[in-house]
């Protein structure tokens, strides 16, 4: 094992090439994937806290029957915002944030393929979050559920701007997810360090590659679902209006053609994180690397053929539904492959129970339960019984909260030391884990029972005669503790910034390249680019080797010269031979301005003033022009 860090170079020459301007200017203009990644994570957690608090208010309302804390209208708004913020503004962006930070480091690059696009993607995410957050502040929250089913969200039945915040906000934030995915795909294919062939790529990078491809093909469907809904609402088209020849089921198809892949868009990066941490803390290579990589790709493909299982209760032809039921069952096979690979890794390794590992083990337990209920609802007769009950709420919180949020918390403990240079407290981390794990199960497990007893989703209260009081009270009480458990981790992060033990370059004795550079990561990531000879570069015998600059143009950025000239290698996709170099663009305010211009367009649509959205389009065109003009200067 080796924990050699990147060789030193003339520190002044390198830092002057990479450092952002100080203060607010640097904040608005940085294109550093690390700054953007960390910012993504923090911003996403702000939405996590807001959405979590909304959930706690809902649970307070449901703690006893016939409660009057919230009325039905307010309750509808709260569950709509909770789901929308969690899916679109926490889960997706937080995973993109980790990817932004980690992918270039793990593949031995000095930045992403499109650093300015990366900044743009962040600003779009923030502005779209503020856009939809404005509905909260102004009191005009959407109330049609995070899925916004028609006909309820048709303008006839749901006038006012509430649903427009949702529809426009979803299209808006989709831009961010899409350009982020483009960046991941190109970065992973074309910027891997020499020697990191596809079969040596870390599993986490595989997971982000699958994430990228799934986003590219799934997000267009939600863009159209929300976009056509907004055309109906703002411009009077009749897509989803049955009285005008439209079809409400079309909306559900469009929504779930994105919606189900989206579940795996969130789940797959989480499995990438788990695969990384389980192997490191079992002190061995991940069992069945090839099986795991294949399973990730397999889940990605199959997840596009299961969306109708969200629509079993809509009355479609039995043949069609049987197909989707079968596909939904088949997805258990690659998921099972992943699960057994993790078990085998732990079984044959020497497990150390650090906080990140505890979160991974918690994930395994929760994912198993969520997976089993997933198989149950894939079977049509069972699904018909529990559709729109708390059983479904329990199921998707096991998969989306348990099987995604737990790995994310583990990842915070695992990678924060690399980001901040400070270790988090293990002691507080354990407390956070156990409070979260126990409270999670007491919160969500009883929901299965409530669902089977017939308690419907999305009701703001229930009658005492139904016998649901005790379980609901238990759930509500436990949900408060779950919130508390997550709070302990936030306290831990704040505490570690000042008091945390300094992190070494490789505090976990891990195998991947992000640990081959100092903690916190220097601006330029690597002085020289590492040369990879195996799947576990830091676990090889002997020291990691570093590339030298070569005389021909293709190898100019490999050595310390690359760090001095703000360039990074561009390599062939399959065998990673250096083909050229990419000049990492200087800090620029254009991505921020372009994002603002697009924000003006959406604002104009929201308030239905063509002058405003016309102005936004004009501003966007000007900024697009500035961007295109600069592109030529940054050519290879």
């Amino acid at each position, binding site marked *: 094992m080796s924990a050699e860090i990147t060789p030193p170079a003339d520190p002044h020459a390198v830092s002057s090439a990479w450092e952002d301007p100080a203060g607010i200017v640097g904040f608005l203009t940085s294109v550093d994937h690390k700054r953007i990644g960390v910012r993504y994570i923090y911003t996403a957690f702000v939405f996590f806290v807001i959405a979590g608090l909304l959930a706690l208010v809902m649970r307070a309302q449901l703690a006893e029957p016939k409660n009057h804390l919230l009325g039905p209208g307010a309750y509808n708004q709260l569950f709509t915002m909770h789901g929308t913020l969690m899916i679109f503004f926490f889960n997706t962006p937080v995973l993109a944030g980790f990817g932004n930070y980690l992918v270039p480091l793990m593949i031995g690059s000095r930045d992403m393929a499109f650093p300015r696009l990366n900044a743009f993607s962040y600003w779009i995410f923030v502005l779209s979050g503020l856009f939809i957050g404005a509905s909260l502040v102004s009191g005009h929250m959407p109330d049609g559920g995070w899925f916004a089913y028609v006909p309820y969200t048709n303008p006839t039945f749901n006038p006012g701007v509430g649903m427009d915040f949702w529809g426009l906000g979803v299209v808006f934030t989709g831009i961010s997810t899409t350009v982020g995915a483009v960046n991941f795909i190109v970065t992973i294919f074309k910027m891997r360090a020499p020697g990191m062939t596809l079969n040596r790529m870390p599993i986490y990078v595989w997971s982000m590659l699958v994430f990228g491809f799934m986003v590219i093909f799934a997000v267009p469907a939600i863009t159209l679902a929300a976009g056509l809904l907004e055309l109906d609402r703002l411009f009077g088209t009749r897509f989803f209006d049955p009285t005008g020849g439209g079809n409400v*089921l079309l909306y559900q198809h469009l929504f779930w053609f994105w919606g189900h892949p989206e579940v795996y868009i969130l789940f797959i990066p989480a499995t990438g994180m788990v695969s990384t941490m389980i192997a490191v803390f079992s002190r061995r290579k991940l069992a069945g690397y090839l099986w795991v990589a294949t399973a990730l790709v397999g889940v990605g493909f199959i997840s596009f053929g299961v969306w109708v299982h969200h629509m079993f209760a809509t009355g479609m032809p039995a043949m069609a539904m049987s197909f989707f039921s079968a596909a939904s069952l088949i997805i258990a096979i690659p998921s099972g492959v992943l699960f057994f690979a993790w078990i085998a890794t732990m079984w044959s390794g020497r497990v150390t129970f650090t906080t990140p590992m505890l979160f991974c083990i918690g994930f395994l337990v929760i994912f198993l339960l969520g997976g089993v209920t997933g198989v149950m609802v894939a079977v049509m007769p069972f699904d018909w019984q529990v559709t729109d009950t708390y059983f479904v709420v329990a199921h998707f919180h096991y998969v989306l909260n348990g099987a995604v949020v737990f790995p994310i918390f583990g990842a915070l403990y695992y990678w924060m030391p690399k980001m901040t240079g400070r270790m988090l407290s293990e002691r507080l981390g354990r407390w956070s884990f156990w409070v979260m794990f126990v409270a999670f199960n007491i919160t969500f497990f009883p929901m299965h029972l409530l669902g089977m007893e017939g308690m419907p989703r999305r009701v703001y209260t229930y009658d005492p005669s139904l016998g649901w009081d005790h379980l609901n009270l238990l759930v509500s009480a436990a949900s408060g503790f779950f919130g508390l458990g997550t709070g302990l981790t936030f306290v831990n992060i704040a505490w570690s910034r000042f008091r945390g033990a300094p992190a070494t370059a490789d505090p976990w004795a891990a195998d991947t390249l992000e640990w081959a550079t100092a903690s916190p990561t220097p601006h330029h990531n690597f002085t020289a680019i590492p040369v990879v000879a195996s799947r576990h570069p830091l676990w090889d015998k002997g020291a990691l080797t570093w590339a030298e600059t070569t005389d021909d143009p293709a190898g100019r950025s490999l050595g310390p010269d690359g760090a001095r000239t703000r360039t990074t290698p561009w390599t062939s996709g399959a065998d990673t031979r250096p083909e050229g170099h990419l000049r990492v663009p200087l800090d620029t305010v254009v991505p921020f301005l372009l994002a603002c211009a697009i924000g003006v367009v959406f604002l104009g649509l929201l308030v239905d003033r063509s002058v405003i959205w016309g102005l936004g389009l004009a501003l966007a065109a000007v900024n697009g022009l500035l961007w295109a003009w600069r592109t030529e200067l940054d050519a290879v």
Partner: protein
Amino acid sequence: MTTATLVRTDNRSTRPAAWWGVATLIATEATIFAILIASYLFLRASSGTWPQGGIAPPDLTIALPFSFVLWGSSVPMLAAERAIRRDRQGVVRAALLLSGLMGLAFLAATAKDFADLRFGWRDNAYGSAFYTLVGLHTAHVVVGVAMNAVVQLKAWLGKLSPERHLTLTAFAMYWHFVDAVWLFVFPVAYLSPHWR
């Protein structure tokens, strides 16, 4: 002290980052069109009559010939891409101009076509689907013509060279995509309603 290694490099001409980025963006844009076409066909399949509400199937007298103009505009783009690699600036400028004019001609024809339509997008789902599908493509053509103007400006200012012409490469990819999508949008929006 760490060891250093001389890595074997490869100096074959390689596709630039912009090529990969635009290719991926085109994949996602193509998916938008594919899903929109699927939505159009879904609405048709679930409707008793098509076009709905007694609307006549689209008139082809203008649309058909000008579709060929649009598809044909890819040819001068190909010529421009070839010419810039050989540093024939004059050919680049002329070809870009011709391609842009063909795009403009298509837009003018589309405008006339839309002006002659006797139904609106509010009338029924057919109208909504027709306007949205054709309108989305038209918006792409408008953006393409605007991009053509930018690239032409660069060409006339002498900012394109055999080594540096990323904007031309990226724009050419986009323009071919806009033309290729019309190969699918046109038959669905203009031809399929004639077939019952």
